[in-house]
């Protein structure tokens, strides 16, 4: 029992550090990749290849003047970035990072909390994250901030439905809401040659989920809440210093978490074909699974950036049109098809 408690607490601390570290270096990666996509060099002066750039940026953020507008709602103005950061960091609690490890003779699962409703927990906390944006935009008492906040909330509502519906299809197939069960349902092979990942069984659902994940994390082409070209900075126009830093950081943590969720739900999480046959030692297998999982996560983070520097922003009405009139009907159709196949499978 004590071993388990200590293991879980250290896992919480390690995941906290990894989340922050990845978010920090995602900002570096974003700038570097953006530069490469645009035939530029990117940050190169702070440290070798500019690797110390996130530290310089963070240090700069801390030493900036922390300005609170006189007309703002002071308590909520301070609360908003805290909510954004808190919810972003809490989401990672239910993600199964790798297979079970053996520590001092005890089998321990590398997951902070194996909730029965893991996927609902993720959706719930991601939705609470929009409160940070909304409260921040409203309490700034600035029309641009307010417009950013309004856009963020309406975007969330329109895309969460399609996201939930596409996940429902997975839940029907797996029969569980727990992320551990969803991952472990993806071992073996599909059609003989493909790995048994949900993406091959649910290609349409994956596409829907991916689009909605872009919208949920407020990334381009759905970055209307920030919208530098139209709304100055959107909901964080009035923010400065580390409060602004928290908002930006929360976005990158969300990106990391949603990449982890995509990898978990659709790409078999820490599973990789033939991995468990090649490695017999459970701890080595766990390490390999961890590496595989993070390789998948990094691929999706790269995809986020790749898309951001390729596609222009949606217009507001196009965004609503896409969400309500296109994605939701397709998601319902996908759900119906999945249900029909699941029923027919029992008769064959």
């Amino acid at each position, binding site marked *: 029992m004590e071993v388990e408690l200590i293991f879980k607490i250290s896992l919480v601390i390690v995941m906290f550090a990894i989340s922050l570290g990845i978010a920090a270096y995602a900002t570096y990666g974003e700038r570097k990749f953006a530069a490469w996509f645009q035939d530029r060099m990117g940050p190169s002066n702070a440290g070798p290849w500019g690797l110390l750039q996130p530290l310089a940026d963070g240090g700069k953020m801390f030493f900036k003047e922390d300005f609170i507008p006189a007309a703002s709602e002071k308590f909520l103005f301070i609360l908003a970035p805290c909510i954004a950061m808190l919810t972003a960091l809490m989401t990672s609690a239910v993600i199964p990072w790798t297979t079970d490890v053996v520590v001092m003779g005890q089998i321990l699962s590398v997951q902070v909390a194996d909730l029965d409703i893991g996927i609902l927990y993720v959706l719930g906390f991601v939705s609470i994250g929009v409160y940070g944006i909304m409260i921040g935009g409203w309490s700034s008492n600035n029309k641009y901030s307010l417009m950013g906040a309004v856009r963020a909330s309406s975007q969330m509502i329109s895309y969460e439905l399609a996201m939930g519906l596409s996940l429902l299809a997975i839940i029907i197939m797996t029969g569980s809401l727990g992320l551990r069960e969803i991952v472990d349902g993806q071992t073996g092979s599909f059609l003989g040659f493909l790995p048994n990942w949900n993406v091959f069984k649910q290609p349409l659902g994956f596409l829907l989920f991916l689009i909605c994940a872009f919208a949920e994390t407020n990334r381009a082409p759905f970055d209307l809440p920030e919208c530098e070209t139209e709304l100055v900075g959107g909901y964080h126009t009035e923010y400065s210093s580390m409060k602004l830093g928290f908002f930006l950081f929360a976005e990158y943590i969300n990106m990391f978490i949603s990449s982890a969720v995509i990898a978990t739900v659709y790409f078999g999480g820490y599973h990789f074909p033939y991995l468990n046959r090649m490695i017999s030692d459970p701890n080595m297998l766990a390490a390999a699974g961890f590496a595989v999982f993070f390789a998948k996560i990094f691929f999706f983070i790269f995809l986020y950036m790749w*898309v951001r520097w390729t596609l222009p922003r949606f217009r507001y009405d196009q965004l609503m049109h896409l969400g309500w009139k296109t994605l939701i009907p397709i998601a319902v159709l996908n759900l119906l098809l999945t249900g029909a196949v699941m029923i027919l499978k029992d008769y064959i």
Partner: protein
Amino acid sequence: MQSLTNRSKIVSNKKMTFSESIYLVAILKGMFITIQHFFKKKVTLDYPKMKKPVVANYRGQHILKRDDQGAERCTACGLCAVACPAEAITMVAAERKKGEENLYREEKYASMYEINMLRCIFCGLCEEACPKEAIFLTDMIVSPDQQRDKFIYGKDILVEKMEKRYDTSKRQKHLLEK
């Protein structure tokens, strides 16, 4: 209407086909284009660390040559100042005293010689006008500064240091051919 240049495009508002209207093909095409740029060799030159090679007769910051004995070649004739279209050059002439033969090559020299680098257009006419091959333009770049008066370069900056001589032989040859 008749087109004059054949470059105008006829605009059509045709309905998109199904494959066009779901945009996925177009998005993938776009992403393929951007990933090609991702791996392209970057043309940026990391300037203060790397420098672009320049031609032999590049017209940068001026230098006032000394001869091989270390005496200044300039005799303050003022031809460079007359030739200068930007009126960037000014000088004060003085007579060489006894015992200064090792400092100045001829009896007259410039006790003050200033070029305003903000006025200078780096045309090289001073170099062409100089009868004594005293002033040359180099491939050095005028360094940036915060104050305007720092850009008025006097003899302390312009006159060549003997321990750090600047090779103008190519430029001299170029002038001799004329």
